[in-house]
């Protein structure tokens, strides 16, 4: 039996004869490609590898935490596992995820351009990323690093005896890939928009990618110099961060979080952009409060730079600085609130299709709200005095990063999959995976909030027995979550060959990227460059509802 959705998806029988995937094949053509779409695919494979390694590390940690004693791996190994997990997930999976894969693939098409502004740099950024990743993998294979992803001094500079320098160098190098990507996107969005595509006609995904790029460009260099100084300090004992030589380890934390707090918005803004696309398309509605949602992205990008000290409330930072950072952290939550409310309002009087991408989008809203609200717990000074560096923090950021961003990434991948490959994924399997992920996710991370408030510190290899029950629940959840991730991997590969041919616009979406065949030709649009005359998301729920009544 066909589902209603499948009837509704507009497919066309045949794939275009020539498209970007088959113009020139062979390894060499791919490795030297300057086509933004192909570079997006290169990135997709690369980050997938890192995601798998980091996930295996997560699985091993969860297995270790099944029992209170440290019995599955040694404490040394455990410490290396969460470092590998954190470093790879943050810098080699989540930060590049939506920007480099979906951003690279879709931005030029969504603004009606033939490519990004600097295609050579775009390819270069991928090579730099791979080089950085290779260094990091080298460090992992040769024994790993045990500093945690935060590299706090003086542990990292003096006491850790693992491959800190190599791993930091890997992150340093990958940072330049981020910078180049951000710079490229900014120049592209500023200079390459199609005729008539004014700023306020841009899809919200573009706005959010622009905001992300601002952060990439202005925050990443500070991480680079911080890690460089950290390495130099480790080699020669400079003393900028070493209390024995007159330095102050808290300065390292300031510099690290000046990057890493904005970086968490690198890890959520693109997801918000994707969700704006999905919510509108699958409720067939113009977004509620377009201007506010767009402005909120920019506000997050700017305000996000002012709050880093909330990671240091109990670090011996001055009490007064703590207060400044606390109030600013609350302020930065307001644009997020605006977005959540606007998405919700968009559903009003829509014609809602529960296609897989929409399920992910709705999951995003729910989990992001919970993750964000618990961020407010942490921003409240007195409460953070208790829950700092406990599993409460772990749960907070997994809710946003896994429940939010990874969900959005999956949603976006499903949404643009037909554009990328020309074929549809199997809808029922998609729904099943989305549901599994959602349930598994909550089972994994909700217990961690309770664990955190109970006082279980993070980065603990063994723990007092009274924490066991919630840890068991969490591990059980992780195995369900793991299945939720494996499913798409399988059916996406399956669909490459057996998926239904999608046609240019299976979702009847309004973006420019849907006005060209799937997969698109090499230069995105056949000859004609699009001209834009109206606002984005000119959907009509009313027409859609009527149309559907006829088709069932």
């Amino acid at each position, binding site marked *: 039996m066909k589902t209603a959705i499948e009837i509704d998806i507009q497919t066309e029988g045949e794939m275009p004869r020539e498209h970007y995937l088959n113009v020139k094949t062979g390894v060499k053509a791919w490795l030297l490609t300057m086509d933004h779409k192909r570079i997006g695919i290169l990135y997709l494979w690369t980050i997938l590898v890192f995601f798998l390694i980091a996930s295996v590390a997560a699985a091993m940690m969860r297995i270790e935490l099944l029992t209170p004693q440290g019995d599955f791996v040694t404490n040394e190994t455990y410490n290396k596992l969460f470092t590998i997990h954190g470093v790879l997930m943050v810098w080699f999976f989540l930060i590049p995820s939506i920007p480099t894969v979906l951003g690279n693939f879709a931005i030029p098409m969504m603004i009606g351009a033939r490519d990004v502004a600097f295609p050579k740099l775009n390819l270069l950024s991928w090579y730099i990323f791979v080089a950085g990743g290779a260094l990091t993998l080298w460090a992992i294979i040769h024994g790993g690093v045990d500093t945690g992803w935060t590299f706090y001094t003086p542990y990292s500079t003096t006491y850790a005896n693992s491959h800190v320098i190599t791993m930091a160098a890997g992150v340093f190098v990958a940072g330049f890939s981020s910078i180049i990507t951000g710079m490229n996107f900014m120049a592209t969005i500023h200079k390459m928009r199609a005729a008539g595509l004014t700023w306020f006609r841009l899809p919200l995904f573009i706005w959010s990618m622009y905001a992300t790029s601002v952060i990439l460009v202005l925050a990443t260099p500070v991480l680079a110099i911080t890690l460089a100084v950290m390495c130099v300090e480790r080699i020669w004992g400079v003393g900028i961060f070493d209390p024995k030589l007159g330095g102050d380890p808290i300065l390292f934390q300031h510099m690290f979080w000046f990057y890493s707090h904005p970086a968490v918005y690198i890890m959520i803004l693109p997801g918000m952009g994707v969700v704006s696309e999905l919510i509108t398309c699958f409720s067939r509605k113009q977004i509620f409060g377009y201007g506010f949602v767009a402005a909120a992205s920019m506000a997050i990008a700017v305000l996000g730079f002012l709050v880093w000290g909330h990671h240091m409330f109990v670090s011996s930072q001055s009490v007064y600085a703590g207060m400044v*950072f606390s109030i600013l952290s609350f302020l930065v939550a307001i644009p997020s609130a605006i977005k959540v409310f606007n998405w919700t309002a968009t559903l009003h009087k829509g014609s809602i299709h529960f296609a897989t991408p929409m399920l992910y989008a709705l999951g995003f809203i729910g989990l992001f709200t919970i993750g964000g609200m618990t961020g407010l717990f942490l921003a409240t000074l007195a409460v953070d005095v208790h829950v700092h560096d406990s599993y409460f923090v772990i749960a907070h950021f997994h809710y946003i990063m896994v429940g939010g961003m990874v969900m959005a990434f999956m949603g976006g991948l499903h949404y643009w999959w037909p554009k990328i490959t020309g074929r549809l994924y199997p809808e029922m399997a998609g729904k099943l995976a989305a549901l599994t992920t959602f349930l598994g996710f909550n089972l994994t991370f909700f217990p961690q909030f309770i664990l955190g408030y109970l006082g279980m510190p993070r980065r603990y290899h063994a723990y007092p027995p009274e924490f066991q029950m919630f840890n068991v629940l969490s591990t059980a959840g992780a195995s369900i979550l793991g299945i939720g991730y494996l499913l798409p991997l399988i059916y996406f590969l399956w669909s490459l060959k057996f998926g239904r041919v999608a046609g240019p616009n299976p979702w009847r979406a309004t973006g420019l990227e849907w006005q060209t065949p799937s997969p698109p030709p090499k230069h995105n649009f056949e000859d004609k460059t699009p001209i834009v005359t109206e606002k984005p998301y000119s959907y009509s729920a009313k027409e859609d509802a009527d149309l559907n009544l006829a088709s069932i």
Partner: protein
Amino acid sequence: MEKVVDPKIYFRTAIALLLLLAATWMIAYINLGLFNLIAALAIAITKAIVIALFFMHIKGSSRLLHLAAIAGVMWLLILISLTLSDFLTRGWTQ
């Protein structure tokens, strides 16, 4: 052919820069207390602005480039001022 700048402007810019250099050098030999630092920074900022305006042609460029030129500096100020908000208020308790 592109629009080009009158050479005189470049020469004047260079002379202004060298004069500023001389000024900052000389002021350093007078003890003005805290004002030494302020003067040195003020002159450095002036020099940077002069270079950006005339050598780097920010003068006459689009608003967008003005913004790009200012952004880096603004963000550096955020970094420094909020970090100092910690270091300078540490002794306030007890």
